[in-house]
């Protein structure tokens, strides 16, 4: 595996959703890299813009409203934002594939599961119908679905098995990049661990890189090499797993960790982050987290800080970092 080669490079990405009423600044100036075989975790609360980033990479933004305003997305050195619809279709499913949040609704209910996987294989590889069917069976076996059940319809599977099928589908063409959009959110806890293990195992075996979108820090700790903490469409903190978990610097990241109940302490109430998440249609002039930040000061209201490298590879976007106070 060419571990040091940059596979995906997102630079200064800005995505807006434009409706006749308002412009929602969903993603603001986001940059990150994923190297070959590496997993990047994208962590943030609901509405922070995590899924929008994923959709922008797949170029599946809702076509009437979503728009990449600025920035580039390079996959293996090629800017995919400028590709034509036809070229992009060849990329999707072959180079980049996606695991959707809800396996219950991500499979076509009137197609047998092996046919759905075979369809994907035939879209990207020149193989006969028979070969595609055989390859579909094989990949299904890899995710633990017996051949006798491969010809069944999605409604005949349980949620965990459907997610296995979705994973099989995402990895059928050995993509370079796998985007997993909260792959375990819709599953119950016992299945979550199994599914995560399965994803990790298969992606390691094929050397696939992964962008894991989640709001579950436990999942991040288990799976990721690097973490980007995202708030209101901006990366507020970016670093390796150790940087984020052992040296969390941004107040938001600290708040996130504070919300997790600890096993050895007997806590009556959880520690929420006070206040509502900021409205992306109406971002404040200064730091977007200042309204909820326990360490906010006067300057935070008016000054939007830039990212500062507090340690090699560890970026923090906070006034405190700018002033060298971290």
């Amino acid at each position: 595996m060419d571990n040091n080669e940059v596979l995906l490079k997102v630079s200064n990405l800005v995505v807006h959703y434009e409706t006749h009423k308002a412009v929602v600044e969903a993603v603001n100036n986001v940059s990150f890299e994923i190297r070959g075989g590496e997993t990047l975790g994208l962590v943030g609360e609901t509405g922070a813009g995590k899924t929008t980033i994923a959709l922008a990479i797949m170029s599946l933004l809702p076509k009437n409203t979503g728009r990449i305003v600025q920035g580039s997305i390079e996959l293996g050195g090629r800017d995919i934002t400028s590709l034509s619809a036809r070229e992009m279709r060849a990329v999707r499913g072959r180079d980049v594939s996606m695991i959707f949040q809800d396996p219950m609704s991500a499979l076509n209910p009137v197609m047998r599961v092996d046919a759905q996987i075979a369809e994907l294989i035939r879209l990207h590889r020149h193989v006969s119908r028979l070969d595609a069917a055989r390859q579909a069976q094989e990949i299904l076996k890899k995710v633990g679905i017996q051949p006798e059940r491969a010809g069944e319809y999605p409604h005949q599977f349980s949620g965990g098995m459907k997610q296995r099928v979705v994973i099989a589908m995402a990895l059928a063409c050995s993509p370079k990049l796998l985007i997993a959009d909260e792959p375990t959110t819709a599953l119950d806890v016992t299945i979550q661990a199994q599914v995560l293990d399965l994803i990790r195992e298969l992606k390691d075996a094929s050397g696939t890189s992964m962008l894991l979108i989640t709001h579950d820090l436990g999942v991040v700790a288990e799976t990721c090499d690097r973490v980007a903490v995202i708030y209101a469409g901006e990366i507020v903190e970016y670093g390796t797993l150790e940087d984020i978990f052992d040296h969390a610097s941004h107040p938001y990241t600290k708040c996130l960790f504070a919300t997790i109940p600890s096993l050895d302490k007997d806590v009556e109430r959880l520690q929420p982050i006070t206040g509502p998440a900021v409205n992306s249609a109406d971002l404040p002039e200064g730091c977007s987290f200042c309204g909820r930040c326990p360490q906010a000061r006067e300057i935070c209201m008016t000054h939007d800080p830039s990212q500062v490298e507090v340690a090699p590879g560890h970026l923090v976007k906070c006034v405190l970092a700018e002033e060298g106070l971290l």
Partner: protein
Amino acid sequence: MHTEAMERLNKKKKNKSQDKAVGVWAEVAYRLSRNRAAVFGLVIILILVLFALFPQAFAGYGYDDQDYSRIFIAPCAEHPMGTDDLGRDIFSRVVYGTRISLSVGLISMLCSLLLGGLLGSLSAVNGGVSDNVIMRICDVFMSIPGTLLAISICAALGTGMTNLIIAITIALVPSFSRTVRAAILTVKDQEYIEAARAIGASKARLILRHMFPNALGPIIVRATLDVAGGITTAAALSFIGLGVAPPTPEWGCMLTQAKQYITSLDKWYIVVFPGVMIMITVFALNLFGDGLRDAFDPRSKN
């Protein structure tokens, strides 16, 4: 331990693994065969199709064989449905009429399925301006009652079977596009469509392989109802003299000729049999259509 129940379970398992090999169509056929009402409808349709294909084999007389010595004979062994005012055998005419009624109904349904399906899916998938334009044009057509529209088109084009089919198709297309559009809109934003887009499927594939099959239920029901609607519209047009011209034995046309005897109770057979044929055909098509909708949905399996 080996019980009877276990044996039954094993057998069931075996059967289950056997139908793995069956194709999707075979499965649809199997599910259809389990639905008695649909099979009943299908049998009637098949009989009608046989009538339409080989009328000579069933009819004892030609459709325009006149015999003035044998007018107004009530149903008997030789003339199962009696004879009309010109001494023609009504049963033979009904059998020959099947060909015209069925083909008018089926062809106009297929044409409107093609046209309406295309317009409806374009409008649902593209949305925006094209949706608005297509749907507003449909609104214009739908503001005119279907039969009236068909009458005016027929009047403008003249009589004859082709014109009849054109008229009926145009009358059916707007509401058909509506149905297809509504059906596709309900599945269009489902996550599996997004997922199909995410594996690199083209627009045509998205529509044909993923949206259409999932939206099939209402479309099939609509299509079978439209065959029935086509047949009745054709009958209505022939009834007022705009459809096929006599002596061609179209059922509606036969009703027209029988209308002067509608008040004479002793000649009931002239009016009743063509009317009953229309009713039976429509009924059979509806039964079959309902069954087909259920059979196409794998979720309705047992």
